[in-house]
């Protein structure tokens, strides 16, 4: 404990260096802006920064780039809430309740909650990083293929809580999402699946293309179809930013729980902010007494995923900093940048480059404070976007989505896919298929399938590998319980009332 403290002081001595303070600020500022623009993700932003950081001291370079990364996750909630257009993949779940809140004239409050929850989630994850990062690297390696499969199964049980009206329609949507997730080259055999011999489909369909299509574009289509009948809505009002004492109390639990959950999910390579935020959201929806109001503008539905995705972002630094292994596409870019700057990340980095390790951790505390201070005053300004006349607003959403999607790979084909998924999203809306389970299937499907096949390949086709491994067994038991608990509870209550 004392050792971490003195190391952290050393870290602060680096992070508080005026030039590094400047880099933290620039990093989180740029990150927030990038996060706000739908589609423009942290990966492309970081790629742009590699040439800038090349000549920098490695700790400064990583401080800057890490700032962009967590800044983007922090800022990504803004367009999810205001426009139903997720800024980065990790903030899709925020739109489930954030966008309804904005439509109810509570945009200011939703944005404020997102900012506070992000701040707490980010800070909790830095504390976790500082105190137990080396220990957590053991958690990260304890997850092999069977464990990931079981975790994905547990994640999929959230379909039940994400399908609000019809469970059957929710399941259909989830299966469709899983089907979309397997498009592309199959790693285990090198075979193409559902690519229709198109070069553009070889890498599968990007998550953000689907998310922007079925959320933002479908929303635009719905608004166009319905014409001007939503004049009654208080679209223009931003509402107060202030939270009442009762509201603070209400979100305190969800923020705390989701921060811890998100952090641990983030530690696992391959999981990350998106899965973390979905799990945080569905966990809170199940725990909450007013769970049925989730998806209709519940403040806990904004707080939970925002705390979780920022915590997961911090957690994703564990494999990078303690093992020298990237846990996600974004951390892979960070790793590449470190290599170019002359640091070889590896399990000994904490010893060989303490300046990088502790400097970055300390800079994250500062960065999170900057982010909160940066974001809060801007909320009324940014929320003014809702004041724009509706035709202009719709056009803006379209442009944001298209620029963002095109900016990912500079490929026109992605725009076609955006339109296709916009239309699919519209059809789903018209026929009452919920979009959230589909997105969940899309996120979890590929990793679930890959993990299952890897596990079976390792065990020589023996399915008992999934119950022989204790972590996997426990995750499956929890999944089973979470599926059966509501029905068991109902049965029990029925039996009691029948007896009475």
């Amino acid at each position, binding site marked *: 404990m004392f050792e971490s403290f003195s190391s952290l002081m050393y870290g602060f001595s680096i992070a508080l260096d005026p030039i590094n303070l400047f880099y933290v600020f620039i990093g989180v500022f740029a990150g927030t802006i990038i996060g706000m623009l739908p589609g423009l993700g942290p*990966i492309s932003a*970081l*790629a742009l920064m*590699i*040439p800038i950081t*090349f000549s920098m001291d490695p700790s400064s370079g990583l401080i800057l780039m890490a700032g962009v990364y967590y800044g983007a996750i922090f800022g990504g909630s803004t367009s999810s809430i205001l426009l139903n257009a997720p800024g980065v993949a990790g903030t899709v779940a925020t739109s489930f309740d954030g966008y309804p809140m904005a439509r109810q004239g509570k945009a200011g409050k939703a944005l404020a909650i997102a900012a506070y929850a992000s701040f707490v989630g980010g800070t909790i994850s830095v504390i976790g990083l500082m105190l137990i990062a080396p220990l957590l690297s053991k958690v*990260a*390696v*304890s*997850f*092999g*293929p069977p464990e990931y499969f079981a975790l994905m199964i547990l994640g999929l049980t959230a379909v039940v809580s994400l399908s609000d009206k019809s469970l059957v329609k929710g399941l259909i949507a989830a299966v469709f999402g899983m089907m979309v997730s397997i498009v592309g*080259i*199959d*790693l*285990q*055999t*090198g075979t*193409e699946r559902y690519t229709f011999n198109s*070069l*553009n489909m*070889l*890498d599968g369909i990007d998550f953000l293309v689907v998310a922007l299509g079925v959320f933002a574009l479908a929303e635009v289509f719905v608004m166009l179809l319905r014409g001007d009948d939503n004049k009654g809505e208080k679209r223009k009002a931003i509402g107060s930013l202030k939270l009442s004492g009762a509201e603070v109390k209400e979100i305190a639990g969800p923020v705390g729980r989701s921060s811890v959950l998100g952090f641990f999910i983030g530690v696992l*390579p*391959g999981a990350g902010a998106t899965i973390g935020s979905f799990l945080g959201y569905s966990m809170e929806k199940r725990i909450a007494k007013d769970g049925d109001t989730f998806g209709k503008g519940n403040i806990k539905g904004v707080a939970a995923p925002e705390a979780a995705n920022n915590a997961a972002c911090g957690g994703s630094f564990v*494999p990078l900093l303690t*093992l*020298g*292994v*990237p*846990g996600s*596409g974004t951390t*892979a*870019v*960070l*790793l*590449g*940048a470190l*290599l*170019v700057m*002359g640091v*070889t*990340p*590896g*399990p*000994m*980095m904490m010893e060989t480059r303490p300046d990088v390790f502790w400097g970055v951790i300390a800079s994250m505390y500062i960065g999170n404070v900057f982010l909160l201070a940066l974001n809060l005053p801007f909320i009324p300004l940014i929320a003014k976007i809702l004041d724009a006349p509706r035709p202009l607003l719709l056009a803006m959403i379209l442009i944001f989505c298209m620029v963002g999607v095109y900016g990912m*790979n*500079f*490929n026109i084909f992605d725009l076609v896919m955006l339109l296709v998924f916009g239309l699919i999203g519209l059809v789903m809306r018209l026929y009452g298929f919920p979009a959230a389970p589909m997105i969940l299937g899309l996120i979890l499907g590929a990793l679930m399938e*890959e993990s299952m096949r*890897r596990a079976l*390949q*390792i*065990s*020589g086709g023996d399915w008992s590998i999934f119950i022989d491994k204790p972590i996997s067994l426990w995750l499956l038991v929890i999944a089973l319980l979470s599926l059966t608990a509501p029905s068991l509870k109902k049965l029990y209550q029925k039996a009691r009332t029948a007896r009475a």
Partner: protein
Amino acid sequence: MLPRKTWSLRSAATALTLSIAAVGLSSAALADWTPSKPVEYIAPANPGGGWDTLVRTTANTIRAEDLAPVNFAAINIPGGGGSVAWAQIARDEKNDHKLFATSPPIILVPLSGRSRFDHNDFTPIARLITDYSIVLVRADSPYQTINDLFDAMKENPSLSIGGGSAAGSMDHIAVAGAAGAAGLNAASVNYIAFSGGGEVMTNLRGGHIAAGVTGAGESSAQLEDGMLRALAVSSPERIHGPLADVPTYVEQGIDYTFDIWRGVMGPKGMSAEAVTYYQDLFARMQETDNWKESRDRLGWYDAYQNSEEFGKFLDEQYELFSSVLSDLGLLAN
């Protein structure tokens, strides 16, 4: 069966002589042609991978040493394991201001039927470096030598060997080829494909797989904490630096080498003057201290070949990889 001894890399000394010779030849050619606008220097992948590191490191060295009158602008075109970028570059015939980083996938991906364009659709400029394939186990593994591992694989073919790329790509070819050279059936290797070398390392550390195969360069930092042990490296002779203790396949009685080479190509129909200019530029670059420092840090070994040699070499690689893929049953058509 696999061809036994495949091909081996020219020694560093030869490469050095060649590159000096190339520099000598270049002075006349230099006057003929120089780039007149920034060179688009493409990494056919996302930032952070091997191609990207090569592009950025060489571009930075060229800039830092002031070797070219124009900027080499690093551009990432990800997708399809390179095929998206190749399709774009193939459309840009005769462009003298476009280069891209290349390595075995330029041969492997078309062979497995996932790219319409292969190495014949581009102009070889120069081979620059090579890395080697390395097999790792956890420190507490019962396998002390590569032969222990291969013997165990004979007994128990379901022993899992993880690699960081899809079936039929580099890591798979590297380990299956070695197993074939050791007398095993190459197709029987239980290769588990992970999405990246990082995942192989975490699964190896966690004891989820029996062994892992990855690039030697990226493994050296992973070996530092003593949790992992290297069984064999695919170089013709022991490599210097942090991996000097790792025995080669050859010294363990398996006649096998494998190079993860990387080089530079341009569009088809690039002018001969431009090809000469670029091949000499890269030869000069490899002589600079700036380059040597980066190269050593990244665990690369100089393996320069000029355009003509590189072209022949690519044809040899094509033959080799076709036969390995066909042994594995992964050859398209």
